[in-house]
């Protein structure tokens, strides 16, 4: 370990770091802007200056940038000395020349890194007498607000957006003190990671637009540790609430999962919590289909009386907590519990759960994925189904660059140097999907195939690596081009130190998953291999592990109900119309005598219930979800649920008690439920380790949800009553609904928000990490429930896909904005999602004589046109695999479409074209909210003027 001397004190520091990291790791405050732990150093802001002396005799030294200077043994430095601190103050002073000082009206105020650094360097007086430069702002879509005048040109935004996240439509424009960060023209930022600009920008240039529309300051927000509902990655979030409204989502650092970044579905989709269609009271359905609100107790006794009148079955939910699903299952018994996924989906998720616990490959965390040096992606469009994972793959692609850099003895943080050195060289990534993906730009090869052919490709690679033939696959039957590709993929994976295979359930094709497993198994003979299998929802894996394949399948349930074997059905947080074709769900709900639905938002299933129970969302309840890695993670109520909303687990616990079911008296508290679950379900036995129980105290105190500066608590309700109500008591968790308590030294699973004296922005996280960019002290939140097993035998390869002349294979195509149920209820996300579409390749579009925006009638094979057909808008995607037709999965209007079905397509002649969609265009003129003129706000053209 090198020793360095800072202002005369000797410190041992880690080798290979730069001085800035070293200082931060030592707990010393060295201000910075352009450096970011995930993005490394470029040395543009010059804020992290220190003085370095050549030797003991040298008294003058010279200024060096902390972030650009590697630690060297014996280095003599000054952080506090006058030269360094004067220089750092000058940097802030000059950054302030053009900064508008509009903190009081700036959305960043109170959590602004520029504010923090300004205070830190002690800059106060203004000497500049000149005019400030001003810029015109751009319309960047419904998510991000742009205020260029606040820019300090640290280049972080473009480095994140372009270099880190692979976006293309944001760039540094113009030069000298006119540098402008924006788009070529006004328009929606196209990257699904754009929201991170809010946190990456150290000042208020890019801010959260929905928050801005109903603004509260960070210090006025009440927060709790939470988990993103948006997909199965399970990013950790820190939602902020005020006045009973969920105001915004910020990233909550978890080194193993999301690190510093979220995707926009998660950041902006949580607005569903504030939806007008939320249920507040229990309701009984009237003759006319309307609901009569009833008291919670009455609702419970009515549900209890339903339950006592015959056989009860239940449908759980992959978006409800493990605890709620557990209680529901316990209420009705394992065989009457349907885990709440459609037939094929359930099989596949169960298949994934089984594979992960038996394969020799590792189920990697997102962080581990970043270490992959050769990647094969089979049939999972992760950019849309697990966006944060796609972002990790993008970092993995850079391992090639890091390898080149290491040869030249460049440290990984020397970002600019490494990018110049490696140019466009990436670690090998091979992608086989039904159409193009947003990772294609870094892929060595990206190929579009029908699902069964993707599986055959995967199996062929496995056979090539292991040398063992795969049943039903002869290499000679492969197309010669594909045969070559198989060889290339196999040798790239074999040559890798950390090969990774990615697949998942989204194509609803089990052979695809099996083939990915076969590849991973083949590799596992010789190297540590990673196998990342995506599942659809935030708790898909948790429910599958709970169910263990024992429960009743959806189709069997429909049959059973049809035969009159079941009288009452309880549906937990699940819109069944998203699970199975409309007719089947209609059949189920038409036949059931009593339907009880617990959900937070109105939906088609809920509208058919006899009794509806209002449940708290993720933001108002506690629970545990298991992500696709197999990591159980806890979320906590951010605020008290309004009216009669209760956490699902609470409704079910109370129902059990009303019914007098055995053991339910000991299931009144969350921790009790979780305990019981961990005892009953072997696969979930470790789940209690996901987070501390409600008795946890931080030096004797509960953990505050509100920051110490939380203001107006006494006045908040003054319009109702001047008497301040007692703060609600949280009996279920170690958190309190107040600002009293200690928020330092916490286990990471209990960190509600980041704050440290002098560090009001999210960058304060470095104060809690064991090193910059490292794990939170004490370990990353969550617990892994799955360990590798003994190995999985290879399955049969499916037959090759035979395309037909008259029919097309229906394949689901996912959209980060639109395919997910809950985020679609957030207005900003819905605006971006647009309408459902049918995706055709150019050949098929030509044959049908349709172009983008035309309508096509999709008829399911073997069904009368009247009942089985849907009309969808066409989107032409030249990359779609031959013989296939895609549909935007999960979007309203596609409920009756069954992936894997053969369909007949016909041009819809009387189709009314819609207005161009927001997402698909750069042209602001099609967007009513956009300012009318194009181009950006600095002078373009003759730049000398």
């Amino acid at each position: 370990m090198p020793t360095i001397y800072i202002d005369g004190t000797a410190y041992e520091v880690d080798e290979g770091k730069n001085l800035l990291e070293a200082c931060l790791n030592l707990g010393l405050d060295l201000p910075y802007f352009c450096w970011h732990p995930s993005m490394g150093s470029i040395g543009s802001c010059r804020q992290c200056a220190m003085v370095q002396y050549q030797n003991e005799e040298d008294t003058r030294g010279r200024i060096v940038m902390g972030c650009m200077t590697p630690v060297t043994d014996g280095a003599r430095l000054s952080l506090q000395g006058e030269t360094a601190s004067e220089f750092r103050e000058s940097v802030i002073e000059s950054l302030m020349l053009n900064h508008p000082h509009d903190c009081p009206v700036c959305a960043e105020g109170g959590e602004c890194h520029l504010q923090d650094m300004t205070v830190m360097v002690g800059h106060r007086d203004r000497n500049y007498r000149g005019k400030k430069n001003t810029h015109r702002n751009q319309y960047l879509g419904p998510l991000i607000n742009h205020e260029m005048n606040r820019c300090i040109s640290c280049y972080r935004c473009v480095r994140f957006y372009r270099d880190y996240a692979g976006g293309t439509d944001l760039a540094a424009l113009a030069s000298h003190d006119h540098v402008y960060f924006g788009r070529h023209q006004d328009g929606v930022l196209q990257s699904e990671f754009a929201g991170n600009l809010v946190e990456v920008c150290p000042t208020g240039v890019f801010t959260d637009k929905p928050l801005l529309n109903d603004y509260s300051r960070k210090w006025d927000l009440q927060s709790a540790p939470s988990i993103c509902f948006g997909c199965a990655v399970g990013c950790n979030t820190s939602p902020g609430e005020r006045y009973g409204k969920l105001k915004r989502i910020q990233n909550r650092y978890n080194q193993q999962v999301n690190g510093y970044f979220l995707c926009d579905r998660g950041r902006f989709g949580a607005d569903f919590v504030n939806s007008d269609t939320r249920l507040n009271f229990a309701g009984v359905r009237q003759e006319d289909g309307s609901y009569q609100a009833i008291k919670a107790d009455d609702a419970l006794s009515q549900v209890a009386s339903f339950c006592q009148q015959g056989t009860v079955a239940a449908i759980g939910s992959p978006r409800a907590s493990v605890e709620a699903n557990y209680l529901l299952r316990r209420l009705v018994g394992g065989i009457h519990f349907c885990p709440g996924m459609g037939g094929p989906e359930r099989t596949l998720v169960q298949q994934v759960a089984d594979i992960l616990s038996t394969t020799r490959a590792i189920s990697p965390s997102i962080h581990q994925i970043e270490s992959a040096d050769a990647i094969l992606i089979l049939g999972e469009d992760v950019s849309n189904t697990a966006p944060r994972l796609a972002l990790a793959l993008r970092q993995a692609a850079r391992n090639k660059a890091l390898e080149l850099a290491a040869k030249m003895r460049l440290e990984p943080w020397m970002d600019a140097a490494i990018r110049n050195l490696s140019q466009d060289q990436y670690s090998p990534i091979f992608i086989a999907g039904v159409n193009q993906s947003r990772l294609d730009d870094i892929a060595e090869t990206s190929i579009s195939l029908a699902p069964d052919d993707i599986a055959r490709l995967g199996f062929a690679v496995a056979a090539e690596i292991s040398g063992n033939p795969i049943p039903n696959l002869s290499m000679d039957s492969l197309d010669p081009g594909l045969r070559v590709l198989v060889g290339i993929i196999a040798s790239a994976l074999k040559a890798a130190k950390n090969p990774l295979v990615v697949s998942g359930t989204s194509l609803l094709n089990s052979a695809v998953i099996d083939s990915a497993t076969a590849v991973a198994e083949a590799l596992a003979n010789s190297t540590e291999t990673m196998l990342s299998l995506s599942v659809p929802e935030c708790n898909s894996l948790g429910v599958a592990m709970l169910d263990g394949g024992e429960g009743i399948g959806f189709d069997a349930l429909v049959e059973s109900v049809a035969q009159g074997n079941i009288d009452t059905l309880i549906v937990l947080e699940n819109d069944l119309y998203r699970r199975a074709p409309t007719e089947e769900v209609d059949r189920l709900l038409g036949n059931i005598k009593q339907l009880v639905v617990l959900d937070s938002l109105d939906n088609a299933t809920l509208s058919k219930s006899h009794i509806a129970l209002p449940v708290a969302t993720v933001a108002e309840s506690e629970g545990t979800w298991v992500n696709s890695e197999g990591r159980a993670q806890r979320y906590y109520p951010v605020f008290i649920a309004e009216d009669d909303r209760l956490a699902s687990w609470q409704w079910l616990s109370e129902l059990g008690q009303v019914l007098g079911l055995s053991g339910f008296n000991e299931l009144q508290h969350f921790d009790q439920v979780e305990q019981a679950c961990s005892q009953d379900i072997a696969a979930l036995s470790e789940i209690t380790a996901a987070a501390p129980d409600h008795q946890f105290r931080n030096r004797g105190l509960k953990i505050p949800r509100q920051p110490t500066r939380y203001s107006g608590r006494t006045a908040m309700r003054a319009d109702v009553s001047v008497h301040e109500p007692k703060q609600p008591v949280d009996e279920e968790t170690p958190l309190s609904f107040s600002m009293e308590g200690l928020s330092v030294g916490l286990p990471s699973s209990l960190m509600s928000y980041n704050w440290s004296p002098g560090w009001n922005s999210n960058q304060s996280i470095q104060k809690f990490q064991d090193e910059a960019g490292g794990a939170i002290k004490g370990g990353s939140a969550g617990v892994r429930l799955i360990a590798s097993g003994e190995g999985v035998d290879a399955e049969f390869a499916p037959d090759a896909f035979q395309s037909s002349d008259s029919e097309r294979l229906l394949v689901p195509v996912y959209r980060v904005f639109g395919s997910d149920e809950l985020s679609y209820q957030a207005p900003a996300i819905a605006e971006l999602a647009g309408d459902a579409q049918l995706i055709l390749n150019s050949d098929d579009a030509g044959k049908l004589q349709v172009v983008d925006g035309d309508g096509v009638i999709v008829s399911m094979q073997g069904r009368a046109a009247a009942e089985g057909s849907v009309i969808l808008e066409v989107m032409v995607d030249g990359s779609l695999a031959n013989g296939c037709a895609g549909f935007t999965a999960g979007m309203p209007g596609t409920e009756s479409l069954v992936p894997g079905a053969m369909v007949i397509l016909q041009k819809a002649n009387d189709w009314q074209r819609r207005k161009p969609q927001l997402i698909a265009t750069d042209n602001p003129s099609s967007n009513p909210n956009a300012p009318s003129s194009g181009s950006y706000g600095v002078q373009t053209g003759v730049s000398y003027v």
Partner: protein
Amino acid sequence: MSEHQLIQSDIALSAEEIRQIDVELAHIPQKSGAAIDALKIVQSQRGWVSDEALVAIARYLDMSPEALEGVATFYNLIYRQPVGDKVVLFCDSVSCWICGCDGVKQKISEKLGVDYGETTADNQYTLIPVPCLGACDKAPVMMVGDDLHTNLDDQKIDQIFAKRTGEGEDC
């Protein structure tokens, strides 16, 4: 961007422009490496680089318009606004300044009726200052189109822009 639009913007580059860009691409390992050459080629054909031209070049080089805009707006001699038939690059750097270029500039402005960044009403000239033209021994100097004019004074200016005052042909 749909394919339909893509083809449209490709058409925006002329065959000659594409030919010249391809010559540059031949010795450059990445398409985006020809960005500056391509901008200059298109500008040499059209006088300036319009938004449409910029998008067309970007598509041709597999770049985003943003990336190319970043390049285009970085350089002094890429014009993102229309310019006159000839650009007057007037050197205002130190040696020319010492030798009185400010007075010469005033003379030009009076003569042409334009200030820096402006184009004459007849669209003939756009006046732009340029950093040191490397002819300091003959200061003050300027370029009109491709021609360097040295040792400028009022008379020279009158000569160079003679036609504008009806005194003969411009040089």
